[in-house]
C-alpha cells in the first residue's frame, strides 16, 4: 500500500501547533460535555430535584452541550462562517417555534 499522503506531507510546523492547540480546546469541551451529561443523569437518578426545577435544568444542560458541539467540534466559531451561523440560527429559530408550537398549544 502506498501511502502517498506521507510523501507530500508539507503541513508546516506553525500549522501543526495551531492544530494541536485546537485539539486541546476540543478535549476541554469534551470534558465539559461529559460533566454536563453526568450532572443531567445525576439529577434524575438521585431524584434530588422536583419536576418543576429538574426539567428546565435538564434543558439548559442540553443546550450548553449543543453549544459546545456547534462551536468547538463543528467549528461554527471560526471566521468566514458567519453566513452559516446566521442561517443555523434561523434553523434553530424555526425549530424552536415548531417545538413550542406543537408541544405547548396542541392541547389548548
Amino acid at each position, binding site marked *: 500500500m502506498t501511502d502517498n499522503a506521507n510523501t507530500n506531507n508539507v503541513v508546516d510546523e506553525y500549522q501543526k501547533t495551531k492544530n494541536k492547540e485546537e485539539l486541546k480546546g476540543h478535549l476541554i469541551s469534551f470534558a465539559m460535555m461529559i460533566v454536563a451529561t453526568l450532572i443531567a443523569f445525576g439529577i434524575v437518578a438521585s431524584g434530588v430535584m422536583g419536576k418543576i426545577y429538574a426539567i428546565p435544568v435538564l434543558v439548559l444542560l442540553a443546550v450548553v452541550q449543543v453549544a459546545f458541539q456547534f462551536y468547538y467540534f463543528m467549528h461554527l466559531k471560526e471566521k468566514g462562517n458567519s453566513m452559516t451561523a446566521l*442561517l443555523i440560527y434561523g434553523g434553530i429559530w*424555526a425549530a424552536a417555534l415548531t417545538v413550542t408550537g406543537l408541544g405547548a398549544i396542541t*392541547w389548548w
Partner: protein
Amino acid sequence: MSVTATQKRGLGSAIWDYLTTVDHKKIAHLYLAGGGLFFILGGIEALLIRIQLMKPENDFVSAGLYNEIITMHGTTMIFLAAMPLLLGLMNAAMPLQIGARDVAFPFLNSLGFWLFMLGGILLNCSWFMGGAPDAGWTAYAPLSTTSPGHGVDFYILGLQIAGAGTLMGGINFLVTIINMRAPGMTYMRMPLFTWTTFITSILILFAFPALTIGLFLLMFERLFGAAFFDVSLGGNAIIWQHLFWIFGHPEVYILILPCFGVFSDVFSTFSRKRLFGYTAMVFSTIVIAFLGFMVWAHHMFTVGLGPVANTIFSVATMAIAVPTGVKIFNWLATLWGGRITVNSAMLWSLAFIPSFTIGGMTGVMVATVAADYQYHDTYFVIAHFHYVIVGGTVFGIFAGLHYWWPKMFGRILNEALGKTAFWLFFIGFHLTFFIQHFLGLMGMPRRYWVFLEDQGLDTGNLISSIGAFFMAAGVIIFFINIIYTAAKGEKVSGDPYDGRTLEWSIASPPPHYNFKQLPLVRGLDPLWIEKMEGNGKMTPAEPLGDIHMPNNSFIPFMISFGLFIAGFGFIYHNDNMIGTIAMFGGMAIALLSMLTRSVKDDLGYHISKEELEKEAE
C-alpha cells in the same frame, strides 16, 4: 459543443441530453416544461370544478370525484405547477444574474428536478389506479387517515418524493448565491430576483422538513399502523394541522417572494430606473420570511386553540402587511418619474399591483380572528388566496416568462398574442374570484360538491364559472404564442430591453458556460453602470482561461426512478407480493445509484482556452 453541433443531433440524443443534463439552463427548460404541463392539468381540474358549480345541485361529477378533483387541483397547482415554474425561472436567471458559470451542485440540481417530476407523475398515477387522493390538499387527519383506497397514499409518497427534490433545489441555490457570486457582486448589489431566490430557498430549507415529517407520520399511520392521529389510542389529529401549516404558511411565501423579485426587476427595467428603496426592498423580504414562520396558526383559528393563541397569531399575521406594503409603495415609487414601456411582461406586472393588493387586504381581513370565524373555510378564503396566488404568483410567472423568454431561447414572445392572452386572463380572473368574496359571506363553505337551490348563490357561481373560461382562453392563447414564437418568433440580441443586470450582458441563449470571463461588478445594476459610463459591456475580472464544467449524468434520473418504483411499492406492499418486491427493488435501485455516484470519481471536464478563443465573437 457549439450551438451548431447541438442542432445537428437527432431527437434521440436530444432526449438523452435532457435526461442527463446538469446544466442549470437546460434544467430550467425541464422545470418550465414539467411545471407547465402540470399547470394545464391543474387548470383543467379547475375548469371541472367551475363546471360542476355552474348551477345549483349540478350532477356533472359525483361527490367522490369532485373531492378528488379539488384535492388534486390544489396539490397539483401548488406543488407541481407553481413551485416548479418558479424553480425554473430561478434556474434560468439567477446564476446569470450573479455572474456565475454554474450552480454549486449541478448534480443535485438535476436530481431535484427528476425527483419533482417523478413524484408528480407518481401522484397523478393515482387517477388510473383506483382513485386520486380525496382529503383536500391539506389532508387533515383523521379524514386522510381513514380515507379508503390508496388515493391518500399516492398523495403521501408523491409529495414526499417531490418535496425532497425541492429541498435539494433550495440548498443548491443557497450555496450558489453565497459561494459563486462574480467578483464585486456583494450581497447588496444582487438583483432583487436573486435576493428573493435566496430568501425563498431559506424558507424551503426550514419549512419543508415539517412537511416531510408530517407526511412520514401520515404514512406510518396509514401503511404501518401507527397511532399519532388515532384518538382511541391517545393520538391527536391536531398535530397534523400544526405540522402541515408550519410548513404551509411559509410555503405561500415561497410562492410569492420569487415573484416579488421578478416584478422588482421588470419594473426597474421597463421604467428605466433603479429600483426605489433597494435596501428597504431587501430588508422587507427578510422580514416577511422571518414573520412567515410565526403565523401558521392563522389557518387554525377555529380549531379551538383559545383566545390567547388566536390573538397572538392574529396580530403577528397582520404585521406582515407592513413589509409587504413597503414593497408595494417602493414599486410605485420606482415607476414614479420613470419612462414606462408597457409590453406583455410589464402588463402582467402592472396588473399584479391592484390584484395582489386586494388579495393582501383580504388576507388582513381573514387574519382578523373574530371575523375569520365567519370567513374561515368559505369561498371568502378561496377568493383571498386565488387573488394572491393567481394575481401574485401566476401573474409573476407570466411576467417572468415573457421577460426572460428571449434570454432563454433567443426569440421574443409575440406581443400581440401576449397582450390578448393577458387581457382575457386578467378579466377572467377578476370575474371568477371577486364574486367569491360575497359567495363566502353569503354562506357558501368551500369544498362543497353542490350548493343547494334557493340560497341566493346561483348568480354568483355562474359568473365565477364564466370567468374561468376566460382564463382558459388566455392560457390557450399563451400556449399558441409559445408555438408561434418557436416557429417564427423574432430573434433578438443578448440585450433586447436595454437591461440593467448581468444576464443581459451575454448572448441569448447563453453559451453553456455562461460567462467566458467572469465579469467585474462595480455596483447595483452592473450592466447599466457600464452602459452609463459608456463602456457598453462588462469588464472581465479575469484573463481568459480554461473553464471547468461538470459532467452530464444519468444517475439523478436513476435515483429518482428507483424512488418512484419504491413509492408504488410502499403503497401496495400491504396488498400483494409485487408491492413488496417493488418496495425493496426500488430502494435498491436508488441506493445502488447513489453508491455508484459516491464510488465513481466525477471531476468534470475543462473547456480549454483555445476552444474558447475559437468560438470567438
